[in-house]
């Protein structure tokens, strides 16, 4: 899972590098995305979720964005800016090692960190909404540090793009 995450971050960085031309429309990205033969088209949800990366991770009790999270979010912002018909819900999540109410507040902080970063990268505020799920929606179900690190996350859930 960690390897996969690194691969995704790498892909996001690549994408960031090849679509940094502000004139580049959705089609321009085909070159970058197209290099993985048979991969999803760049304007699709699948591309956003798998290539750009739909999630960033946080340290325990923290809501600041580390450099890899910032790289992923820069890629998200560029994708969102290239696909203006889309909107996104930013979900803030926490691991199970805190109380429900604290984790709701912590999830709100995390979602807000992601939101602010995307706004700073030029995404229109009216296309974004935040929601905290606290610890109510874990993706890794174990009770171990690796599972907890996957659950301390901000998820950018995009709608309005073709799925694949």
């Amino acid at each position, binding site marked *: 899972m960690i390897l996969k995450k690194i691969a995704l971050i790498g892909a996001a960085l690549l994408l960031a590098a090849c679509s940094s031309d502000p004139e580049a429309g959705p089609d321009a990205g085909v070159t970058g995305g197209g290099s993985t033969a048979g991969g999803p088209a760049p304007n699709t949800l699948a591309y956003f979720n798998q290539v750009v990366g739909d999630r960033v991770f946080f340290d325990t009790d923290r809501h600041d964005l580390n450099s890899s999270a910032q790289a992923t979010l820069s890629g998200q912002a560029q994708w969102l800016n290239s696909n203006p018909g889309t909107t996104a819900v930013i979900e803030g999540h926490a691991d199970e*090692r*805190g109380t429900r109410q*604290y984790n709701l507040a912590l999830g*709100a902080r995390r979602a807000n960190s992601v*939101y602010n970063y995307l706004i700073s990268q030029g995404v229109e505020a009216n296309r974004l909404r*935040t*929601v*905290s799920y606290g610890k109510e929606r874990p993706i890794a179900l174990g*009770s171990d540090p690796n599972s907890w690190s996957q659950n301390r996350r901000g998820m950018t859930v995009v709608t309005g793009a073709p799925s694949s």
Partner: protein
Amino acid sequence: MRSYVTVSDLLRLCGAVVLAIAVVAGSAPRAQSQDDGALQIDVTGAQFEPLPIAITPFIAQEAGLTQVAGDIVGVVKANLERSGLFRLIPEEAFIGQISEFDTVPQYADWRAINADAMVAGTVFRAGDGRLQVQFRVFDTNAEEQLEGLQFLADPADWRRVAHKVADGIYAKLTGEGPYFDSRVVFVDETGPKGDRRKRLAIMDQDGANLRFLPGSDGLVLSPRFSPNDQSILYISYDTGAPQVFMLNLDTGQRERLGNFPGMSFAPRFSPDGGSVVMSLSREGNTDVYAMDLGSRQLRRLTQHPGIDTSPSYSPDGSQIVFESDRGGKQQLYVMSAGGGGATRISFGSGSYSTPVWSPKGDRIAFTNVRGGRFHIGVMRPDGSEERLLSASFLEEGPTFSPNGRVVMFYRESAGQNGRPQLISIDAATGTNVRQVATPNAASDPAWSPLRK
């Protein structure tokens, strides 16, 4: 199908009822005794002994009432046993028997089986068809009647009558307030850990009369009772974000409290029921607010970049305890109900959260996380006399019984198949740990006030 008691039933139950019945001839208590309650368990000592008590079969005054008389005694016994403060002497050990309700018991027969207290009761049908239940509590050593009460109720409410009888016995013999005639609302959880269906459920404190509340499918959290027992505050994701809703238990009507940007959560009623204190998160920052339910005016009580949440009023309504990470990690703070300066009260190791003020006002229960373990604890409102009652991998969210004697919370087991369960514990002694039976996994319990 009748699933819960309606208002009219409540009125009938509370209107006519609690009548003291005559002292049985020959067992008059010592006049105006300053030593009132000669028989009383020492319920505060660390090494208290459960009080040995004999509950005799209640006498049915007509054949058709034999079943309900037995059922009532069963509920009474189960309550007293579950409290941990009584030792029930099995019927097989009885030497004496009560064949007439209005006769003086042969005290020696009950002393011989080491029963310090004995209860006799009778069930008959009142002229208007209602169930009429009378009972007496005797001190077998002092040879006197300590208590004599009767209750009238719709036959369908026999369980509530049984709880009232148990409350009468419990209160007289422990000196604590009653709590058996009360309910618990909680979050019923089904489905896998990553996609739990959470819905609101309500039941009597002994687990009977469970039903699911309408309009709460999907994801709901933190239900809380109103002081009049008729409304529930809770969190729902119905609008796409967590928001505080209020549900009227009688009418089933639900409404969203306010229309806030961001989210609202962690609600609790004020003791007079006139306002709701809760957390609002705006742009990622969580503060405590109070809403007047009449005017719907919102008043901000904390102004801090930290996470300020889990507010709970003192029973007199003058103060609020809440948790905040303003000092680094979550700690408990007390402030005036109108907001303003807050005083930190938790100073032990780890973090402190989910404070709740005891209905008696003398304790605050909380969740503490230290050394990777979760604990439920209690402390004085000034932070002194902290005591951790329990520990496990994950437990949180204490709620007090109406008399402040019992704390219920939820405990979740670890791993993929981990599931939450309701646990109760004696808040004064840290003993009598019991799992509260629920049909599915269960979390976020909230105890109702004592029913009227």
